[in-house]
């Protein structure tokens, strides 16, 4: 088991070395992208669970009662807590305040999603850059040794292909997760909006 792990690690090192300089930004992009993705996954998961129904939200507002963090931790309870902290007591003004709070929470749902998308889109471009540098290295070898030295040419070509492969392998799950998170965010935004309209009608 340990030997297998060691061997895999060695192969990884050789792979990164074959890829050349472009592998470093690729790894960094991948790491940053996945940190943001994981953070958003946890963030949405917290807001998804133990959510509050619109009726109990209205009850809480009527009774001026902060939601119990043990019972309610979802996004609706966040809206209720936010509104209770900021409400003025005037009915017309409260409606505007509620709208503003809904907007504020909805905007926070979209945080980092654009950045994740950009990082996922950058990865194949970095792979392309690696391809170009690899091909330049190949042609440098060609200009010195001619077509005879296949071994030296193979270095540049492997660099070109490895970076492309890595770029795609970083981008594909990244784009999938971007879509998944977008769906989650839309879902949560929809929830907040629905509850917002419900509360606005009752205020």
């Amino acid at each position, binding site marked *: 088991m340990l030997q297998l792990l060691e061997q895999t690690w060695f192969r990884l090192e*050789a792979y990164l070395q074959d890829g050349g300089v472009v592998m470093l930004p690729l790894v960094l992009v991948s790491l940053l992208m*996945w940190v*943001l993705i994981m*953070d958003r996954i946890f963030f949405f998961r917290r807001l998804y669970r133990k959510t509050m129904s619109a009726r109990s939200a209205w009850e809480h507002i009527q009774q001026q009662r902060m939601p119990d963090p043990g019972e309610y931790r979802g996004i609706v309870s966040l809206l209720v807590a936010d509104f209770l902290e900021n409400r003025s007591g005037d009915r017309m003004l409260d409606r505007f305040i509620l709208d503003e709070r809904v907007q504020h929470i909805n905007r926070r749902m979209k945080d980092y999603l654009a950045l994740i998308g950009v990082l996922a889109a950058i990865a194949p471009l970095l792979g392309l850059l690696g391809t170009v540098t690899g091909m330049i290295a190949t042609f440098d070898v060609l200009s010195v040794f001619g077509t005879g030295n296949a071994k030296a040419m193979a270095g540049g070509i492997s660099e070109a292909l490895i970076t492309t492969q890595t770029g795609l392998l970083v981008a594909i799950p990244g784009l999938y997760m971007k879509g998944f998170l977008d769906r989650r965010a839309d879902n949560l935004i929809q929830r907040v909006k629905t509850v917002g309209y419900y509360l606005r009608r009752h205020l």
Partner: protein
Amino acid sequence: MSRPNDYRQILRQRNRGAWTWALLSAMGLNLALFMLMPHLLHSAPAKPTFDTLLPQIQVVRLKRPESPISRDAPRPPEVKRQQPAPQPDLNSAALQRPVWPFEINARLPGGPDTIALPPLETNLKALGIGDLFGVGDLDQPLITLTRMPPIYPLGAKRRGIEGSVTVRFIVNEHGSVEKTTIIHAQPPDTFEEAVLRCVSGWRFQPGTVDGQPVRVWAETTIHFTLD
């Protein structure tokens, strides 16, 4: 006033480790992803071969110093045997020659001069007979470097005349064409000029005999056909 703070604080406490968890899980995921990537390439892992090769190299290195020593040891006696051997031979030959007076010596005065053939060959070359070679005499057939097709004469094209021209030329030591002559032209006075113009522009790899570039005469027939 204390309650809203409580709610916020509790939420914040729960979310405190979120980024570290995200970082750790992302690192784990990345490690797994990048470790799987090399397995997409079906190249054999290089490390085990290194491990097996290294001890072998060391064994060879240990052997190397032994062999030169063993080789050096027998060498000096061989050299010593060789050096004295030729010296007496030369001396004895030099000594023996005057000792043998041959009767035949008087009969063969010009012998060595006639046997030496090189002057004869140079004489032939100087005469220019061996200067020009046919294509068959070459080490390898003539290789064309550039061979422009002739321009189809406009008048002949308009009238729809087809034909062929046989041309003879000399390829010199530098591979360019000299002394182009028309041997046969069918029909006459139509294609000759075009052929002469294009053949003079041809370049060949110089023909060689025994590795020496030589002048070669060659003959070719160019056909003019309308598509």
